[in-house]
């Protein structure tokens, strides 16, 4: 009897998916996607998460969690599960689930929707949940330590090095998105720049004026943000201040690198903490507002279900649906980076083992919902506008007329006037080739918010609000990530040179910070100067690396199930591991070895290298120096891909070896912390 409502919900979800799958040509309402996703998520949570909790993990409500047996009121605090859900969700949801689905919309809305729904249910949420479980049973240890405990020190070190590389790529690609969103946009640049003095003032307020009053200072900061957006319009229009806040991508790149280095050396209370308050609360608020906005507006989808780019040759990113769609949408479907969060603060705060499905599986479903909203956002735009924003300048030219012609030739008719009018509506000089996903989403959010509040007169405000919201939490991620990367690097170098570890002197800290900033700065600069726009090159590398980390986390989960002697349930982690390995290994190999220069780094390098020897300049390069830079960058990217492949293959080797060893044992060999019972403590 109790199953009947769930069966109905499952049928509703299936019906919505069927509507999406069969409609071609006629306009489909965005709510079909939303209802399909939400009902799938609820049914998956009710049945699959519960199955994993009861049978695969055998969670025990009577077994104390680290927050109980290690309680200290500081790091280890048993927390209400709803409160902890918010904490965990805020930590996992960032720019990834907003950007990836926007880029994936180039293949139409259907492939992305299906991958997000099935990916999160079978892979992403399973990964987060399993890692949380594993860490929760081991005093809340981190991913690197967990791999070391269960798979040996070599595997642990490889995983740690892989995680650092991924961090570098994430920081570079996030910074690149900010550069693409703010370049040549004085309004956007002014509002984002204004957050720095604003954060400093907030820092002073929480330090000396009203210490610890987060709510108060955040409200004041929010008022400042709104004022900055309003003022930004006049700044951009001013003959003097407009040019002062107009930067080329190259200049912005250097500003960001300098800022990243400085921000990670300043005291945290001055800049990092107050800006994190703003970005966290703005993020939660904007996501909630977007959800309400989509439901109230119920917009029709204007992007086709499938475009001709499913076979490859798309302008936003290269490659065919398989395997590249599955690495383009990483966060939202399955994100390896979450393994670092699920083995971070959350396992130290969870109050009972039986809360783990809600936190681990549930919060990831929520992130998938954010990804679905981003996909909806990109798909309600006129496809002509979408492709004019997301194709590189090398394809479009720089003015609305050439862009309209190029996009119309792709099969998405759009007029130069529409492009120019859209740019005027959102208060920008141009929307042509604003790649990176963030500006596209901002146009969509402006569309939705203006429908709810303010009408088209408010579009420019809402556009810059959306840009600010994205840039703000990306910047927070950049400096928090630089700090985290610095500590990872110190740990790694400390394995060889013990004196390099944290706490001995300030020199290693500065050296590690410099190394970390230089690493992501290199890839950022490469992306910014890439004539194809950079997102094209860097986003796939980011996707591959993130999915590979997910594969590593799921391989660890598989090893743990084998060592618990619960291998009859190992398919729960083996199936998504296998799928991710197939996707990432084939995408990585294609990126490395494909003979198509649009896809393969080495083929691209060979093509430009041959031209270089012949002394000819190939478009989009304009000089021999640019040609040399392209060849060099291709080789670095190829090396990176090869490195990621090596990391994942070596960990696969350790996984198989450890699983076979576990099978030969009679009893469990798993390294869990001794069980404390709640009643006994």
């Amino acid at each position: 009897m109790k199953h009947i409502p769930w069966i109905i919900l499952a049928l509703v979800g299936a019906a919505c998916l069927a509507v999406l799958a069969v409609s071609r040509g006629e306009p489909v309402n965005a709510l079909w996607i939303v209802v399909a996703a939400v009902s799938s998520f609820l049914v998956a949570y009710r049945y699959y998460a519960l199955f994993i909790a009861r049978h695969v993990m055998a969670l025990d409500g009577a077994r104390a969690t680290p927050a109980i047996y290690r309680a200290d009121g500081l790091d280890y605090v048993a927390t209400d599960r709803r409160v902890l859900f918010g904490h965990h969700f805020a930590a996992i949801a960032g720019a990834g689930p907003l950007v990836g689905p926007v880029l994936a919309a180039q293949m139409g809305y259907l492939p992305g929707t299906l991958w997000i729904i099935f990916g999160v249910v079978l892979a992403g949420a399973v990964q987060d949940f399993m890692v949380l479980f594993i860490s929760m049973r081991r005093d809340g240890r981190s991913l690197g330590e967990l791999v070391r405990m269960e798979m040996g020190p070599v595997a642990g070190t490889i995983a740690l090095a892989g995680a650092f590389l991924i961090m570098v790529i994430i920081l570079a690609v996030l910074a690149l998105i900010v550069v693409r969103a703010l370049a040549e946009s004085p309004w956007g640049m002014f509002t984002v720049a204004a957050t720095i003095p604003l954060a400093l003032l907030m820092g002073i307020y929480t330090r000396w004026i009203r210490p610890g009053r987060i709510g108060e200072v955040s409200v004041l900061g929010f008022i400042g943000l709104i004022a900055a957006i309003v003022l930004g319009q006049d700044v951009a229009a001013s003959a003097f201040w407009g040019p002062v806040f107009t930067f080329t991508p190259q200049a912005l790149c250097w500003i960001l690198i300098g800022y990243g280095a400085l921000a990670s050396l300043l005291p945290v209370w001055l800049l990092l903490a107050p800006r994190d308050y703003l970005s966290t609360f703005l993020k939660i608020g904007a996501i909630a507002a977007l959800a309400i906005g989509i439901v109230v507006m119920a917009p029709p989808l204007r992007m086709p279900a499938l475009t001709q780019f499913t076979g490859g040759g798309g302008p936003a990113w290269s490659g065919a649906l398989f395997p590249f769609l599955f690495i383009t949408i990483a966060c939202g479907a399955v994100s390896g980076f979450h393994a670092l969060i699920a083995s971070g603060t959350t396992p130290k705060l969870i109050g009972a083992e039986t809360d783990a499905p809600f936190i681990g599986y549930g919060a990831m479903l929520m992130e998938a919902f954010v990804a679905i909203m981003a996909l909806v956002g990109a798909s309600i735009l006129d496809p002509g506008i979408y492709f004019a924003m997301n194709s590189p300048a090398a394809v479009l030219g720089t003015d609305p007329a050439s862009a309209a012609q190029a996009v119309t030739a792709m099969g998405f008719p759009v007029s130069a006037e529409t492009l120019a009018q859209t740019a005027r509506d959102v208060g920008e000089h141009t929307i042509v080739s604003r790649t990176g996903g963030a500006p596209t989403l901002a146009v969509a959010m402006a569309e939705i918010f203006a429908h709810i509040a303010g009408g088209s007169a408010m579009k420019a405000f809402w556009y810059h609000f959306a840009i600010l919201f994205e840039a703000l939490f990306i910047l927070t991620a950049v400096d928090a990530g630089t700090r985290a990367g610095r500590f990872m690097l110190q740990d790694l170098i400390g394995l060889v040179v013990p004196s390099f570890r944290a706490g001995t002197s300030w020199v290693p800290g500065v050296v590690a910070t410099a190394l970390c900033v230089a690493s992501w700065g290199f890839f950022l600069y490469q992306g910014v100067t890439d004539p194809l726009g950079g997102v094209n090159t860097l986003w796939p590398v980011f996707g591959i690396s993130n999915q590979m980390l997910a594969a590593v986390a799921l391989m660890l989960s598989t090893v743990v199930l084998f060592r618990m002697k619960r291998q009859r349930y190992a398919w729960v982690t083996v199936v998504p591991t296998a799928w991710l390995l197939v996707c990432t290994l084939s995408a990585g190999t294609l990126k490395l070895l494909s003979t198509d220069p649009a896809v393969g780094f080495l083929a691209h390098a060979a093509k430009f290298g041959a031209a270089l020897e012949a002394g000819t300049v190939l478009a989009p390069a304009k000089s021999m120096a640019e040609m040399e830079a392209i060849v060099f960058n291709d080789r670095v990217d190829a090396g990176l891909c090869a490195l990621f492949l090596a990391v994942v293959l070596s960990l696969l080797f350790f996984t198989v070896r450890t699983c076979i060893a576990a099978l030969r044992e009679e009893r469990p060999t798993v390294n869990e912390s001794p069980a404390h019972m709640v009643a006994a403590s």
Partner: protein
Amino acid sequence: MKRRGVMKQRDVMKRVRDMLRLMVGQPPYEAYLAHMAHHHPEAAPLTRLEFFRNREQARYGGAGGGKCC
């Protein structure tokens, strides 16, 4: 009846407040005091401000950036 409704509302407000503060790395101070009183009654607990600084440093100063892409 009415009184219970008010209590409940206050409960929800507290939970929302706890959630927002924990999102930026600040667990409830009251829980810390309760823990100290129960387990370490002899030790002087951190003041509210010291507790705030301690958590701020733990969230932003160390390796746990606590942020995702």
